């Protein structure tokens, strides 16, 4: 069978108007169904004819899934709310600005105008072997092409790898973990709510999935508690191009500092592993310590403990160390005469 790309295969399209109908359709079509949110990740798979869903369920008409609601000091963000809507929302900017910064660093303006928060956290790995349609572990095969003597893997994992060395590319995920967000997942049997960091799975647990979503599941909303409203935030993303590029690494931290000491803190990094990592060891180590360069240094070193590098991604260790250092200890701003 000769190979051809760039023509989307024909599929059956459904555009339900309610969550109920969506769940019904998901049940009816099981693994044949493909859920389409913003579509910016999906269309690559479809246009390359690598994934061939029989049925595509387009959520664009489900209004219940859109919009940002204020609930008891926190926020509930519909999964289909676009990144732009999130970035521009006054409460997000005022109380949870780290989410705005994270979301705004994703992709490009047009993509943020269409891409959704739910889609951004649920997007698939970007490993160029996997995306190239190479039948690797993540694609149901029995090999990782990105960790071989000839592989080019500068963008791959330094932590939590298990056979597959792909990373999670989401920019909003670490911000949501830092904000102690909760993800609301529904299926026809009911609803479950999980902590942001537990929404994601690594290859050791499920090598073909990025999240806990199984056929029939639908991420409906993301809840942000008031816990970290107005805390001190830090987000930084390092990438090759300043727009339309995935992170080589990103870091997000939320911190409450009381008379110079770190009282409460959450910190997460992404693009270091197949799932966004919450650095609990770092959090425990710096809690109660003064927020200064020394604490930052210590945090940075601790963050990269146990990192395993591949042929081309060794730089990620100092990079993660320095980003965590900045997130905890703060940045020394340049002053040019």
């Amino acid at each position, binding site marked *: 069978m000769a190979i051809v790309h760039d023509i989307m295969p024909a599929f059956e399209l459904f555009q339900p108007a309610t969550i109920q109908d969506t769940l019904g359709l998901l049940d009816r079509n099981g693994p044949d169904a493909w859920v389409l949110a913003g579509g910016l990740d999906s269309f690559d798979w479809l246009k390359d004819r690598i994934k061939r869903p029989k049925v595509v369920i387009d959520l664009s008409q489900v209004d219940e899934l859109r919009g940002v609601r204020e609930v008891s000091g926190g926020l509930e963000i519909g999964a289909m709310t676009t990144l732009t809507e999130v970035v521009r929302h006054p409460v997000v900017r005022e109380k949870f600005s780290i989410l705005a910064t994270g979301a705004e660093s994703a992709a490009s303006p047009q993509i943020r105008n269409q891409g959704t928060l739910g889609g951004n956290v649920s997007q698939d790995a970007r490993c160029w072997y996997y995306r190239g349609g190479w*039948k690797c572990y993540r694609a149901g095969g029995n*090999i990782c092409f990105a960790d*071989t*003597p*000839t592989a080019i893997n500068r963008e791959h994992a330094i932590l939590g790898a*298990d056979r597959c060395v792909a990373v999670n590319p989401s920019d909003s995920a670490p911000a949501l973990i830092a904000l102690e967000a909760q993800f609301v997942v529904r299926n026809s049997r009911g609803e479950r709510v999980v902590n942001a960091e537990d929404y994601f799975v690594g290859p*050791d*647990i499920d090598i073909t999935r990025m999240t806990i979503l199984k056929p029939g599941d639908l991420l409906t909303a993301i809840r942000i508690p008031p816990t970290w409203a107005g805390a001190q935030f830090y987000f930084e993303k390092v990438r090759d191009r300043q727009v339309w590029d995935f992170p080589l690494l990103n870091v997000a931290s939320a911190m409450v500092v009381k008379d110079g000491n770190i009282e409460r803190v959450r910190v997460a990094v992404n693009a270091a592993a197949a799932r966004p990592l919450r650095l609990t060891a770092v959090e425990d180590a710096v809690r109660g310590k003064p927020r200064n360069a020394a604490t930052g240094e210590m945090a940075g070193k601790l963050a990269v403990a146990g990192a*395993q590098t591949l042929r081309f991604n060794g730089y990620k260790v100092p990079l993660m160390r320095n980003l965590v250092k900045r997130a905890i200890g703060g940045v020394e701003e340049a002053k040019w005469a």
Partner: protein
Amino acid sequence: MGIVEFATSPWGQTVPIHISFFLMWVCAIGGLAFLIVHAIYVQFVAKAEHAGPVPPEVSARVPAKIPRHSLASRLFHWTMAAAMLALLITAFLPKVGYPFAWVTYHWIAGLVLTASIVFHVFHASFWSDFWSIWPDKIDIEDAKRRWLRATGKSAPEPRKFAKYPLENKAYHAIILLAGLSVTLTGVFMMKRVQTPFFTRNPYVFGDMTWGLMYVLHGLAGVGLIALIMAHIYFALRPEKFAITKSMVFGPISREHYLEHHDPERWAPSE
């Protein structure tokens, strides 16, 4: 749905990657079916074999306890059993919907199994009666006799067993085959994952060779599901329980020996 799953290689060629995992259900169910059928057969169909009485002078010579398994072979058996169970659990539990980080446990158990098998081969070859586990002419002949008698035809009475009954020997042969297949392919597969032993390199063989190895590993693996089920089943059957005990404590009783074994063919404590 085929027995083997194929994938397109980066060069666009179709290569096998592994077995279809529904085969593990086939084997599990197949194994179960065999137990049930066998249980029914033994319960209702099979006529109890009444072997001729052992001449008293012979039985007199038989001690109260006859050593069946040396300590070494018992240790081996149970190590292997543990490794084997660990391997089956780590291999198939995630496949049936209980995901966990299984790979490291799997290859460690695999190494234990491999080591124990290597030990066993040496031990059996040089320190114990190597041929006692392989079917001999009499086994075959007696098998024929039993078959004829079971099917109501006339045939001379089969003799008693030597150290191991034929079923036992046959089982050993099959599980040896399966065991060697999984361990040999398994050892190579360690090149494909991170281990302290080698730098990871999946390119020591071509896509096709690897594919076949995975298929063999898979087939042997699912095969072992059935074999292990059968093994445990027999170990728990009342008439075989004495043997099971001997795998724990070593000897079998004089009575059991006299009932099932032919002192001509298996002279104890030699």
